[in-house]
């Protein structure tokens, strides 16, 4: 990307941000009404768990959380709060939603990030190998492997990884986010946390590994037949240099598009994987919020995910314009 394109990119970012506002508000209102379709609310869930709630305590709970107000008024109140940059308070945790999400967000982001890195690194490497040996045994074996990764559900992969690496081999912990009571600092703490992340990130990644491997393979095989690759060979470049500089880079453009679309999907997948590995992330918070009918928390998470999708899409546009100069940043 040359410097002369920088101002245009900044302009694109500003416009994307402006366009995001009505989109996100629309998503919120839609979700607000969708959630009303589920039977029960936070007060019902709390009272049910308590086991011995009377009609009076239930009514008191409802009025305390504002759940007895008309739906339109509840929505108005929520949007009013939002306009003042408040996500409301969770009746269940009796904590501001922003704090709850803030505490879990870094865990989920690092899990998703690592999973995406795993998926891209392993997927592109496998895809490049498959393309290089297309039609030969290496390609066949890896294709079967990719098919397995694609079709096995992530919770089962997670459980099997735990059985192999934690129970049998004892290399990695079975779950959690860090060694409790170890009080590590600096690099030790980072390494400790990394050990806890490997298995969940891997089980989240394997499905996408399969997709990126197939995509990379097919794109590379297509690019390889293009005229400019023959030009590269005519220059006297080695097969490795031709693949690296003239095939892989061109083939990666569709892969980045897919990875962008998948980043949002990773968040959904995180719900399952976080539960399997007792990972204290947003996915599990969302799951708990659904079970407890804690709609403020759920709306907060949905707001965050939609913002994430918008941000990722914008980032992908910029990344693509950098990879492929034919694409203008609009």
């Amino acid at each position, binding site marked *: 990307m040359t410097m002369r394109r920088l101002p245009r990119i900044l302009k694109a970012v500003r416009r994307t941000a402006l366009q995001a506002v009505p989109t996100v508000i629309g998503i919120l209102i839609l979700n607000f009404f969708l959630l009303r379709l589920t039977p029960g609310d936070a007060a019902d869930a709390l009272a049910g768990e308590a086991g011995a709630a009377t009609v009076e305590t239930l009514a008191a709970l409802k009025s305390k959380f504002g759940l007895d107000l008309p739906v339109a008024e509840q929505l108005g109140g929520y949007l009013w709060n939002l306009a003042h940059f408040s996500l409301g308070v969770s009746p269940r945790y009796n904590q501001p939603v922003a704090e709850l999400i803030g505490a879990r967000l870094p865990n989920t982001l690092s899990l998703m990030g690592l999973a995406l890195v795993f998926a891209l690194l392993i997927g592109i490497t496998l895809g490049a190998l498959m393309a290089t040996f297309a039609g030969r045994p290496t390609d066949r074996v890896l294709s079967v492997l990719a098919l397995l990764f694609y079709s096995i559900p992530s919770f089962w992969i997670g459980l099997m990884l735990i059985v192999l690496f934690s129970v049998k081999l004892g290399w990695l912990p079975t779950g959690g986010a860090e060694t409790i009571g170890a009080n590590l600092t600096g690099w030790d703490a980072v390494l400790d946390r990394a050990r806890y992340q490997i298995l969940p990130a891997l089980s989240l990644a394997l499905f996408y590994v399969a997709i990126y491997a197939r995509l990379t393979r097919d794109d590379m095989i297509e690019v390889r037949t293009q*005229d*400019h690759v023959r030009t590269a060979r*005519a220059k006297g470049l080695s097969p490795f240099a031709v693949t690296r500089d003239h095939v892989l880079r061109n083939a990666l453009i569709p892969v980045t598009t897919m990875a962008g679309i998948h980043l949002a999907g990773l968040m959904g997948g995180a719900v399952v994987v976080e539960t399997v590995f007792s990972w204290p992330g947003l996915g599990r918070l969302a799951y708990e919020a659904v079970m407890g009918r804690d709609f403020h928390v759920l709306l907060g998470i949905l707001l965050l995910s939609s913002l994430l999708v918008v941000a990722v899409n914008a980032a992908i546009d910029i990344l693509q314009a950098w990879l492929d*100069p034919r694409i203008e940043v609009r």
Partner: protein
Amino acid sequence: MAPLIDVRDLSIAFPRATPVRGLSLTVAAGETVALVGESGSGKSLTALALMRLLPDAARIASGEILFRGRDGAVTDLAGLDDRALRRVRGRDIAMVFQEPMTSLNPVLSVGQQVAEVVRLHEGLSRRAAFARAVELLDLVRIPEPRRRAGDYPHELSGGMRQRVMIAIAVACAPRLLIADEPTTALDVTIQAQVLDLLDALRRDLSMGLLLITHDLGVVAEWADRVAVMYAGRKVEDAPFETLFGAPLHPYTRGLLAASPRLDAGQHYSAGALAEIAGSIASAAGEEGCAFAPRCPNARALCRAAVPALDAVAPGHLVACPVTTSEAQREARHALAVG
């Protein structure tokens, strides 16, 4: 003078076909040789074979490609291993392809693509190679080369892209430049500019130039010598004055008769253009001369065996038994009368 490249009896085979058979061809340093033929005659495959860039399914079935390197040593490119071949490609022999639209990598700037070949063969640093690329873009007469070096292929016109291809090809001052229909995809006005540029570079760098084309107008203006191919074989090889002045092979004659001439005032309204009856497809499965099914002079002996290339004059080879015997008879007749 010993030729720069001496192709001897080259055959190129696919699993089910042999599109080039027993082709011999030479190009001397500083010489422009045109390889002429219609689509499917095997001329582009020949060009790719010289650089050993044949498609995966094709292989060199027989023959030698003797190339005289900078140190005067002669190597057979047909038997060279990949590593040695990579030192020849782009450095000693370079190629300009037919399609400037698709022959450049769309995601790299043209400066990077020129610099790449310089870095590879001359071991320049990234910065020095880019500076050299700008010089090369200037050499191929691209205006504002410093600014253009940062452009991507899609930002350039077809003619400009072909100039970039030429800059890549001549970057290491190759001994032989192969240009495979370099102007077919370009506007007529640009064609002459590109060919003039190739010709000037050939002179300045004393390269041999193998110009592959089906355009006889191009041949007439820029070639020193012409080899005519038909259905995978060379049928005539002559200096360009001889070929245009006194073509001998019936196919060459047919080609020349079929090309419209502006100076002759020929216009479609003045009558149909001459054509060679039939199509090249009739050459398939032909035992003898591949051109016999379309040839007005075909005799029984034409179908009996593949005609050998005979020298009818110094530097003039023809693969046609009928014309050769006529030419010899005339020569004898001239002797007897004289």
